């Protein structure tokens, strides 16, 4: 069961909209940290599930941030 994908995608992309003016490394880190600190695990699982399906519609920075985050949280990413 996942939350509405579109809503999660747009929320994740909104975060990228804020960080996109920072240098790429910092931006990716910023997005990843934000999602980790403020999204409950089921939301993260939801977005990871979308990521596993290719991550269509995700901002390139969000995509990178989620990949980084998924690598840090393999259990959560796998259960998605």
């Amino acid at each position, binding site marked *: *069961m*996942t*939350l*509405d994908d579109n*809503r999660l995608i*747009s*929320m994740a992309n*909104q*975060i990228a*909209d*804020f960080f*996109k*003016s*920072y240098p790429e490394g910092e931006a990716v880190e910023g997005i990843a940290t*934000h999602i980790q*600190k*403020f*999204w*409950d*695990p*089921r*939301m993260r699982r939801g977005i990871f599930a979308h990521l596993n399906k290719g991550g269509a519609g995700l901002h390139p920075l969000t995509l990178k941030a989620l990949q980084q985050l998924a690598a840090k949280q393999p259990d959560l990413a796998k259960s998605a």
Partner: protein
Amino acid sequence: MLIQETDYGTPIRLSTKMVTLTIDGQDITVPEGTSIMRAAAEMGTKVPKLCATDSIEAFGSCRLCAVEIEGRRGTPASCTTPVENGLKVWTQTGKLAKLRRNIMELYISDHPLDCLTCPANGNCELQDMAGVVGLRDVRYGFKGSNHLDAVKDESNPYFTFDASKCIVCSRCVRACEEVQGTFALTIDSRGFASTVSPGQKEDFLGSECVSCGACVQACPTATLMEKTVIDAGQAEHSIITTCAYCGVGCSFKAEMRGTEVVNMVPYKDGEANHGHSCVKGRFAWGYTTHQDRITKPMIRAKITDPWKEVSWEEAINYAASEFKRIQGKYGRNAVGGITSSRCTNEEAYLVQKLVRAAFGVNNVDTCARVCHSPTGYGLSQTFGTSAGTQNFDSVREADVIMVIGANPTDAHPVFGSHMKKRLREGAKLIVVDPRRIDLVKSAHIKASYHLPLKPGTNVAMINALAHVIVTEGLVKEDYVAERCDMMEFNRWRDFVSDKRHAPEEMEKYTGVKAADVREAARLYASVKNAAIYYGLGVTEHSQGSTMVMGMANLAMATGNVGHIGAGVNPLRGQNNVQGSCDMGSFPHELTGYRHISTDAVREEFNRAWGVTLDPEPGLRIPNMLDAAVDGTFKGIYIQGEDIAQSDPNTKHVTAGLEAMECVVVQDIFLNETANYAHVFLPGTTFLEKDGTFTNAERRINMVRQAIPPVPGYADWEVTMMLSKALGYEMKYSHPSEIMDEIAALTPTFKGVSYKRIDEMGSIQWPCNDAAPNGTPTMHIDKFVRGKGRFMITEFVPTEEKVGPRFPLILTTGRILSQYNVGAQTRRTGNVAWHPEDILEIHAFDAEQRGIRDGDNVAIVSRVGETSLKAVISERMQPGVVYTTFHHFGTGANVITTDFSDWATNCPEYKVTAVEVRLSNHQSEWQRENALFRQASRRITKAAE
């Protein structure tokens, strides 16, 4: 005991230069500028007086306060004569006694002699003065021309004006001008014919009067008198407590007869309000005894069933067993709770503790989610703390005041009055708001600049202002170099210097003339003390958090953080929204804004609570509702919040609630959320319990029980019962013990206890070893986070865009007389001012649609439709319409969408694309909701 503050006759003077004089043979030293009357009062000598009172400047009209000064001729008025070194003053002499008696005789000859039946009997300064001067005889008789037949004006729902008792001392007129700043009253005519009159000889209700009560407070006679006092009689004891309406946090004396409140009088020693009040706190407390209050617990299996009244035990056990069943069936994380910003700190703390410790989850949130969550995020990123930087009194030293997306005269009225006073003294004002709010131009106040930006373009505006400051060399370089992170500053400087942020470039988004933006920026940067005050017009946007950071950047760049008169100040909505956030109500934070993933912090709580907390953040309110619609979230405990009316996209909210299997609502009335509830736990008002509220200036104020809890238990006790039934027992015998636990677990509250608050009156956190008396101004020598951090704030237009189908922007807000969802104020006399929500629309937009003033219109967005009355308003700009959300029948949030702030999910209430058209019927939602509402409120009474 009835608390009666000393009236010193004239206002305090703060000069550091001291003056010594002799009064009645005794030496006294007071600050320069003090009146002789006040100096006498400070040594305990009361000079008779009628036209003076210490909330307003002296006027010198009654002459009763005459004194003799050695070496001076005549008998000068002590209220208007300032002290001088070496003066020898006599307040009681034979000559003065005769003079005073003559004056009183004249007053009394035109005054009805019905003292015994007068409602002010026992609390009338005229009566007192007649006694003080020893009046025994009125030689003129009572047959001359007089005002004894004057008609009473009873139009105001809360006080009467009985002109026959007026002594024309003009205290009311001056209070309205000086204290409230409304200028509603005048003295008509001169000499004997003179009378007090609201506006152009209107009645009070029809005049400019905002019913703040300052004139009633100032009136020495029964002329202006509270109706509750007329009905019930004078009080016999008082209890100092805190208003439960807005984030100003005014202190009041609840004036009582037994367990009945007869009057709420603003308390002079209240640090937030200094004896002033607004119509809500002062008068709109009748809801506390309203017949609609639910006083018995109720349960039902399905929301289509009628409610069944049950015992506390049955209700609590039912709720607990349902939560346990749900967690067993759907998993631990299928439940959560919402703490209330209306309840006390102690109650909010207990609810989050219940969620984390008894439910074992972090799915706890609070209504700050939908108002000031971006404030917490934005200010903690830049300054390192999630709260405003100043106390309210700081405004007295501001040279420039920038008000952004706030309407203090309506939403934070007492602070609005203090701000207006400073503006009348000459501080300059910049208003950044789509609407021409009252502050822009009102009696003796005119904004230097009003920047009427299009809703949704705040960040474009703040970047344009910053661009001017950076490119015109207005940055306070030495401050920045000393106090801020230079790497971040330089990066920010490069960012905002870019031409794309210039006011000329941003004009296409904001719609505001570039020249005005440039001038406003120069004005803001030109003074020593420039203060920003902001409200929900900043936070309730998809870029709410970005805007908060943008304002923090601007303040740091101009050196405006860390001293009195400056700062970045959120005007917080609800009475305890600051407190509920401080108390760990957010799903990712424990008390004092410490992240749940921080092991050391969690460990402390684990030890204190005897549990193992989950290190992962929980769901926020919108996420809970999404998860409920999605089927993974099934049960919720909601204390004192009405998400079905206050949260955006009502249909989505109610779909979420409907999808849950156990909704527990704890409130004083059946609110709209309760229509979807399975358990109703009757709540208590602020008059029925002990606790604390924390206002917008981080001030922890006492709430003291004045009457016993109507349903039998205070809210904190109910939470304890529920927690015990869930298997996690909490043991507190008084809220002070809860505060002791908070203080032990929260570094910024370390020095807070009920004892300390009682001693000090109130405490502003942080209060700890480093600041044992609390902290009025934050970040004085350095920022809480160390170096101030500039953040890059790229403007991203909202996705909510106008187009051919929805060509107008709806923005929502509040008005003075109603409060939030209106559950309280709708049940008081305040409906006299705002009986329904209306849609304000510009004449141009109205004409295009054939809408006339007063027509019923439909308003439609992509998510919903409702109908209400249209009012043509010049305060609006073309293309923007405005409404409030105080009435459930209108359901303004049926139209607002679920777009939200990127960082905090705070909803974008301030921007919804809509269309408005003439309509002669209610929307489908309104009709269906009315029927559902009625059905869901049936109650089967328990046998007595």
